[in-house]
């Protein structure tokens, strides 16, 4: 039984008991009581009321102790001693999660913050239920402790409304069975050695970024997984003239420095696009652009990492 099932069962059981009580009293409401009976009813009601208060008081005291004697929230201003530490930054509308592979069996300390507005870092297990969450607030780092017991791919969903891209603000990380005991560095090293490297892992050996995965994590919230964008808000990439332009300069510039109030293929779009120059490296941006240039029927000429590097060095001026 999950925590959600326990909460739901308690709530439904409580509602049923309350409803039963109301129905019982309502069923008696049509009866008539003379003055003497009324006085006895009043006295009985007072006695039952006192008993109800007493029972609820006991429930309150025991329930409070049971749920609070060991606070489910870790201390925020002292070392937590977790072997695994994951840094999380929420952005409008994507997550940075480093590292994105975790071992089972030992505590993981998530250090969660936001680069812009309030977000909510909610971890969904492979069964689709939340296992833990914490708010991501700009200027604050909240520490969440959790121990994973089951391997699998866990999804992170933003649960704090953060703007029009809130719903697709989704990412994931992998939980693998523990491979070695040791320090944080050893643990991360062991994870890296055990798995094929991906672009968002701290690299211990050269990794080939997965453009589709990076697009999904960073761009799909606005441009959609289908590349169709949001009419009037975020432009489509499918059939986009900039994406299909043999000269990738404008596209590289947009990804590096962002855009706002842009007219694309004759349509003005209200949404603002953040720049990714401080978030993604040249190889990652190259992978994303090449994914966009080849997906959804697009036929743009692939770009090289050197072109992205040159554009980065040239700065914001187009």
């Amino acid at each position, binding site marked *: 039984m999950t925590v959600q099932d326990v909460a*739901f069962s308690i709530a439904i059981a*409580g*509602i049923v008991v309350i409803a039963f009580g109301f129905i019982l009293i309502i069923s*008696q409401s049509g009866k008539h009581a003379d003055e003497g009976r009324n006085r006895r009813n009043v006295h009985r009601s007072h006695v039952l009321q006192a008993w109800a208060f007493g029972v609820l008081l006991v429930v309150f005291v025991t329930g409070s102790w049971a749920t609070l004697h060991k606070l489910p929230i870790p201390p925020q201003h002292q070392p937590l001693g977790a072997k695994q530490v994951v840094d999380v930054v929420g952005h409008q509308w994507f997550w940075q999660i480093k590292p994105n592979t975790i071992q089972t069996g030992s505590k993981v300390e998530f250090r969660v913050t936001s680069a*812009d507005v309030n977000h909510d870092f909610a971890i969904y297990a492979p069964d689709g239920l939340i296992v833990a*969450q914490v708010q991501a607030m700009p200027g604050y780092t909240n520490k969440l402790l959790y121990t994973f017991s089951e391997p699998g791919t866990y999804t992170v969903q933003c649960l704090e409304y953060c703007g029009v891209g809130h719903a697709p603000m989704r990412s994931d990380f992998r939980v693998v069975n523990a491979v070695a005991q040791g320090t944080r560095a050893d643990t991360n090293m062991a994870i890296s050695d055990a798995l094929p490297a991906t672009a968002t892992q701290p690299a211990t050996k050269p990794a080939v970024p997965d453009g589709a995965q990076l697009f999904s994590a960073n761009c799909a919230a606005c441009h959609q997984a289908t590349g169709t964008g949001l009419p009037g808000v975020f432009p489509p990439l499918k059939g986009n003239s900039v994406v299909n332009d043999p000269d990738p300069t404008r596209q590289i510039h947009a990804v590096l420095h962002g855009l706002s109030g842009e007219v694309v293929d004759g349509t003005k779009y*209200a949404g603002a696009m953040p720049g990714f120059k401080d978030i993604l490296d040249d190889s990652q941006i190259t992978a994303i652009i090449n994914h966009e240039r080849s997906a959804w029927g697009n036929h743009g000429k692939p770009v090289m990492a050197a072109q992205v590097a040159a554009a980065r060095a040239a700065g914001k001026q187009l």
Partner: protein
Amino acid sequence: MATMTLYPREERLAGSERLVFNLYLIGAVTLFALMMLIGLTMRMSQAGWLGVPPDWFYRLLSMHGAGMVGTMVMASTAIMWFFLRKYVHLHLWAFAANFTLFLLGALCIIISVFLGGYGGLWTFLYPLPSMGMGMWSPGAAALFLLGYLLIGVGELLFYLDAAAGIIKVHGNFWHALGWNWLFGGTVNPDHPKAVVASTSMIIANSLGILAGAIVLVMCLLHIFFAVDLDPLFTKVLIFWFGHMYINAAIYMGVIAIYELLPRYTHKPYPLNRVFLWGWAGTTVFVVVVFGHHLLMDYAVPHWFLVLGQITSWTSGFPVFVVTAWGGLSNIYQANMRPWKMPARLMILSLFAWVAGGFCAVVDSTMRFNLVMHNTQWVPGHFHTYLLLGVLAMILALMYHVIGERRQHLPDHGADRMMFPVYLGGALIFLFGFLEGGRASVPRRMATHLPAWQFTDKVGSIGGVLVVLAMLYFAIRITAGLLTSESDPPPATEDGRVGLSDATG
């Protein structure tokens, strides 16, 4: 204690008072119906039955949240005024000014949302209003915040006038709350419950409105002068304001039950020490309980989060052990058949308040909040005590008033038919949310994964029934309120007097 005369002379409205009161109630039912249509649109979009683009979804959500909360408080303010004026002198200008400022504020909000594109939700969580990413301008966000300020100022004006009236009669808040009887002395059974409840909310909600005013001005300074704010401090103030405001709707609305229920049961409902202790607890708990909105903000001092859980649990005591218990005791063997609409709605509201409150207690328990925060459990529990609780209290007063205007107890066949449509539809609608919460379906989200859409569909079906019922209520009540009284004055139904010591 509250009169048992069904339609006492001192409650009759005429002239300007009747006009302003009618505006409140007709405004309320109209806005409720419109906001419900917006809500249904969103649920059907989440279900995949309508295709509302995300930018429009969040505009609608902003309008629905602000509109419902504002309208609930506006309507329950009318309840408070209707009964409190019998015990203390209230100036009509303050009551009218509140309504005028409410309308102006609502207009600002409507313009900011539908013309300015504001989609930052009722919570206006800093710094989101100034980071719309092109969806809305800072000006639109500022207009939304100004709308809130106007509504808050209006409510504060009404409270100040009511406070002055209460102090003139009772000397001070201490006596108005009956705290002089908490530890001894003979409780005056005729001390009006309406005065106790009104005083409690004047104190608590004024504090909440002041917190809101501070944070609204801070946010406006940020928008216009780029003043940087602390996001945690602003979030604390926002939720103190918001939580308090919507709770005031319930605690003002319950005055209708204290005043009206004995008229339909023909059993007195006097004040006693237990009642006074219940309201003393409420006055304190409701001010400090809002920490339960911040349980996942680990940066908040943990003692405050613990206080949030504890006071969430203790807040249930006055609701269940005092008010609901007292209401049920009042209807027990009260020879009530056949039930009339006001009585049905009042008892329904008590049930929903207790049931929804129980779900709220579950969510405010940290261990559960860890997995249910910001899921659909949250709208599940608050829609329970708002849709079936506060709304039912408001409808109960409205039905009672139209009964007076039409000179007979309101209970048409259509009323008896729409009541189960309202109740049944709401239960289905609420189940959609609560089951969604159990299944970790997020709240406040425009597009849902296919796995989440079953409960959206269930909720939408329930929502259709609720909207149908609300449209009926809106038309029925508007028509009833606009019916003129005929001369001579309506016959009042004399209650059976003399029964004593019904529990309160």
